[in-house]
């Protein structure tokens, strides 16, 4: 082996040694022949003839050392680099095209990688699960039990958060779980530290950090003695809280903070890298954690599904095993507590899967689309290479004539393609970085971990793999072409005729593929675009313009009762209404698109049936503020107050769905046995409370003044203004602080911003796919243009002959356009089939249309055909202007 390496590094010496040896041999042979009586010159020639081909022997000897294959490969790449450098125009276009395709791919893959592939930042993340409860329609279940029909009629189960009481039972599955911990958002007002601020925090059960496997950087985590009602007030803060709000004070563990008016002892600081599962998909930072310390009544309320649950499986336990253990418990609970638990089932799935579930489909669709773009760039570059291969046919045939093997030729051409791919890969990664930043800037906050997108080895690996693959794909056709050159051709000077039928066939096929791929992307983009337009046109049922909404969460310590909170807001409404430019004000627990409260009710018409219904407590100005109009009866008035007859306004869907279209006015409903009957006094128009994609559901509007009979908290404050709503913010803030100087205002949005945010993910997807389709169509146009231009050049003499024989320019134009039409028709036809097959992956992203929407397909076809015709007009016109004399002179 050592000698082999020596050989590698002392090649020249080796060669000259061998040469000298052979030289001597020939001389000695010549002398011997001379001695045998042959003339000196003749003897030398004889000796040489006898010896044979020096170079071949050298080669054969050299090959024995085993480096030749490598050397040839290196030669191929070196030659490739030289030829590419000699054609800077071609190389630039090819590399840029590749960079475009690969760059888009790199950017999209980076997002997919960060969101879906990268594991969660916890130890052994594969063992983490999230737990939900599923409920089948209990009413249907109870009925089916009595009638003996199948439970399948109960409809698909509804997924909810988990009841704390049930969680205590699920925890008994100790064989399956190392731990199950609950968490929930708990925003609190931070006071005593500059201007009051509302911070996002989480209330978590003891063992939460142990389940995630994250020890604190300082101090300790929550223990069971921290986590009960009435325990000492403690808090664990994040590194960001510690650094930003406490200046990184080393004495932090002896400090306290005031949250919602309650002083809490800091017992721990989390590591800098820590992010809770709830943080993924959330733009605001979670800054503190408090013990859940659930109140006693919640600990026994099995029907109250309130909290999120994360758990860690025991090592070696599969999700299925754990699920089976939970099913046993769920069934037992259902039997023991049929009123609350019949039809309720705890379900688990891997935490990671759970976190990405909302964006998985659309990300995969985008990844697929970017893959199509790469294919299009491949066909485009292959097209370019084919043109070049034709121009180099002379070179190829000379090389073949000189004894190059076809294999060697193919290898040489592939080496060139791979070099192009490598350059494209590097440029693509650079472009991808830029595109990635753009993607992150455009992406909606709801994509988990979008802020943590970086390029890692996976991204680079994927890019390299794709680039190599593309290099081979787009290189194989031209390489094959070149190897098919005929040695004899080098002797004829027929550069113009060269190219041959086979090359045209290849190029035509490639262009058809390109058109087909663009067609698929165009249809996809069209479907999303149309969905988006339809979505934007959806009537919400209320007027969101010039409405400012904000959250004013009153801490329970200072505003313990509903009437205290109502009192605060009544005062605030009075003061704000007096501000200039304010047209209407209203308070509710939640304004539309900002969450809400749903409760089970029974209506007096059908007292045995219970329905789930959205309910809001609203002040009297609600309908005016949001622009909801009365259809029947009356709106809420100041007469609907504590002590008065419990009243409510419903929407018209309520009557349709719960009252068999009977007049709701005067009908009564209640939340459960023992709660007061509430009389319906008015009907208002339907609104889409959960946004444009939401369904119209029955709604109940309860007077905020009577909210002592419902468990809601007034918190959202809305103002309708005559001018630009944000201009009033400072004045409103001043009024809040004049009532309570410690009260922060948070999540201030105009209603239009709220609606905008609700469609941001769709806008993102649509925008990306439209851009992709644009790129694809652009590349396809270049492809069509190239093929036709080339074909016209090739047929110059033929077209000239036709002209000479009396063809009109118009005939020639038609001739070339016909060629284009064949290309486009074939491409579009294949594209249609492809679209039909692939749009099924877009189905979940569509709104209001079928994936087979004929108008979209027709539109895409028309658009593509029109652009293609325009692209082919230029070469066609050039063809029609061929001067017969000039053309014939070529012959």
């Amino acid at each position, binding site marked *: 082996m050592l000698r082999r390496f020596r050989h590698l590094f002392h090649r020249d010496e080796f060669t000259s*040694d061998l040469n000298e040896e*052979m030289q*001597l041999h020939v001389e000695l042979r010549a002398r011997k022949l001379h001695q045998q009586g042959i003339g000196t010159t003749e003897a030398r020639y004889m000796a040489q003839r006898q010896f044979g081909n020096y170079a*071949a*022997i050298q080669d054969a000897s050299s090959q024995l*050392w085993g480096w030749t294959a490598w050397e040839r490969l290196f030669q191929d790449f070196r030659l490739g680099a030289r030829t590419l450098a000699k054609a800077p125009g071609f190389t630039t276009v090819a590399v840029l095209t590749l960079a475009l395709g690969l760059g888009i791919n790199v950017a999209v893959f980076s997002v997919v990688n960060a969101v879906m592939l990268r594991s969660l930042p916890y130890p052994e993340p594969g063992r983490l699960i999230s737990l939900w409860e599923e409920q089948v329609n209990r009413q249907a279940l109870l009925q089916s039990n009595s009638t003996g029909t199948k439970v399948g009629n109960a409809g698909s189960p509804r997924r909810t958060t988990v009841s704390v009481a049930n969680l205590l039972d699920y925890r008994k599955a100790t064989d399956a779980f190392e731990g199950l911990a609950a968490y929930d958002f708990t925003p609190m007002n931070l006071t005593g530290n500059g201007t009051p601020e509302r911070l996002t925090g989480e209330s978590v059960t003891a063992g939460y950090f142990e389940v995630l496997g994250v020890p604190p950087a300082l101090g300790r985590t929550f223990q069971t003695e921290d986590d009960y009602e009435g325990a000492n007030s403690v808090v664990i803060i994040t590194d960001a809280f510690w650094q930003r709000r406490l200046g990184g004070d080393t004495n932090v563990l002896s400090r306290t903070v005031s949250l919602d008016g309650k002083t809490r002892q800091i017992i721990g600081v989390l590591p800098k890298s820590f992010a809770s599962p709830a943080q993924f998909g959330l733009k605001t930072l979670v800054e503190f954690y408090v013990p859940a310390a659930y109140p006693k009544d919640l600990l026994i309320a099995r029907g109250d599904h309130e909290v999120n649950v994360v758990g860690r499986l025991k090592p070696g336990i599969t999700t299925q095993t754990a699920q089976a253990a939970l099913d046993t418990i769920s069934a037992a609970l259902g039997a023991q507590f049929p009123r609350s638990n019949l039809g309720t089932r705890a379900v688990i799935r891997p935490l990671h899967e759970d976190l990405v579930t909302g964006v998985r489909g659309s990300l995969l669709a985008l990844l697929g689309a970017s893959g199509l773009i790469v294919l299009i760039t491949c066909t485009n570059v292959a097209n370019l290479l084919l043109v070049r291969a034709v121009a180099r046919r002379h070179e190829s045939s000379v090389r073949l004539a000189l004894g190059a093997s076809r294999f060697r030729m193919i290898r040489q051409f592939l080496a060139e393609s791979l070099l192009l791919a490598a350059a494209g890969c590097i440029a693509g990664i650079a472009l991808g970085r830029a595109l990635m930043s753009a993607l992150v800037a455009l992406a909606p906050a709801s994509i988990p971990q979008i802020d943590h997108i970086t390029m890692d080895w996976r991204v680079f690996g994927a890019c390299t793999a794709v680039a190599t693959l593309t290099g081979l794909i787009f290189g194989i056709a031209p390489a094959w072409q070149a190897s098919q050159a005929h040695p004899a051709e080098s002797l004829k000077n027929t550069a113009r005729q060269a190219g041959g039928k086979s090359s045209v066939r290849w190029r035509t096929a490639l262009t058809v593929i390109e058109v087909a791929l663009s067609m698929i992307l165009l249809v996809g983009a069209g479907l999303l675009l149309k969905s988006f337009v339809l979505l934007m046109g959806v009537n919400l049922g209320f007027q969101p313009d010039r409405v400012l909404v904000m959250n004013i969460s009153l801490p329970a310590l200072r505003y313990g009762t509903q009437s205290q909170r109502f009192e605060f807001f009544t005062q605030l409404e009075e003061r704000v209404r007096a501000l200039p430019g304010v047209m209407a004000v209203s308070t509710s627990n939640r304004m539309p698109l900002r969450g809400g409260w749903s409760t089970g009710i029974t209506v007096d018409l059908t007292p045995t049936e219970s329905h789930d219904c959205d309910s809001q407590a609203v002040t009297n100005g609600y309908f005016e503020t949001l622009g909801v109009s009365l259809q029947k009866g009356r709106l809420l008035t100041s007469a609907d107050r504590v002590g008065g007859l419990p009243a409510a306004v419903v929407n018209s869907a309520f009557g349709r769905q719960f009252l068999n279209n009977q007049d709701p006015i005067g009908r009564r409903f209640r939340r459960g046995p023992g709660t007061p009957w509430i009389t319906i006094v008015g009907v208002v128009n339907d609104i889409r409370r959960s946004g444009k994609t939401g369904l119209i559901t029955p709604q109940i509007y309860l007077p905020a003044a009577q909210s002592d009979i419902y468990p809601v908290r007034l918190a959202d404050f809305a103002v309708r203004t005559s001018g630009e709503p944000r201009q009033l913010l400072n004045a409103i803030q001043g009024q809040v602080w004049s009532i309570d100087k410690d009260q922060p205002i948070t999540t201030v949005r105009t209603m239009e911003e709220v609606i905008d945010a609700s469609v941001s993910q769709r806008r993102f997807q649509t925008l990306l796919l439209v851009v992709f389709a644009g790129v694809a169509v652009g590349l396809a146009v270049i492809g069509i243009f190239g093929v036709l231009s080339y074909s016209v050049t090739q047929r110059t003499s033929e077209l000239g002959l036709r002209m000479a024989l009396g063809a009109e320019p118009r005939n020639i134009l038609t001739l070339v356009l016909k060629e284009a039409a064949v290309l486009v028709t074939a491409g579009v036809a294949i594209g249609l089939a492809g679209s039909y097959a692939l749009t099924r992956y877009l189905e979940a992203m569509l709104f209001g249309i079928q994936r087979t929407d004929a108008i979209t397909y027709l539109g895409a076809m028309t658009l593509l055909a029109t652009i293609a015709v325009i692209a082919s007009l230029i070469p066609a016109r050039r063809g029609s202007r061929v001067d017969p004399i000039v053309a014939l002179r070529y012959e």
Partner: protein
Amino acid sequence: MRDEIPPGTLDMLILRTLARGEAMHGFEIADSIQETSDNVLHVEEGSLYPALQRMLIKDWIAGEWGKTSENRRARYYSLTKAGRKQLEQELARYGRVSQAIARILQPA
């Protein structure tokens, strides 16, 4: 009348020639084989030099530069230990094969 060297035996012939103990250069080896065989076997130069390289790689022979009687630089090849062993093996194999062939060709 000259004959080509039967395939597979060139290595053995070179080794056997060198086994006489004298270091030789390429031409001498070719000449020696030709003369010893009474001009029946003719060594093709096209195979001789690659064969020598092959045997160098396999460490059956060693090459050393020296001077000819006429003061010309030449590479002199000599047998190594491994080469001697290889020669024994090849001779044994050749003996077996040629005996077997002889038995077949003998009239019964």
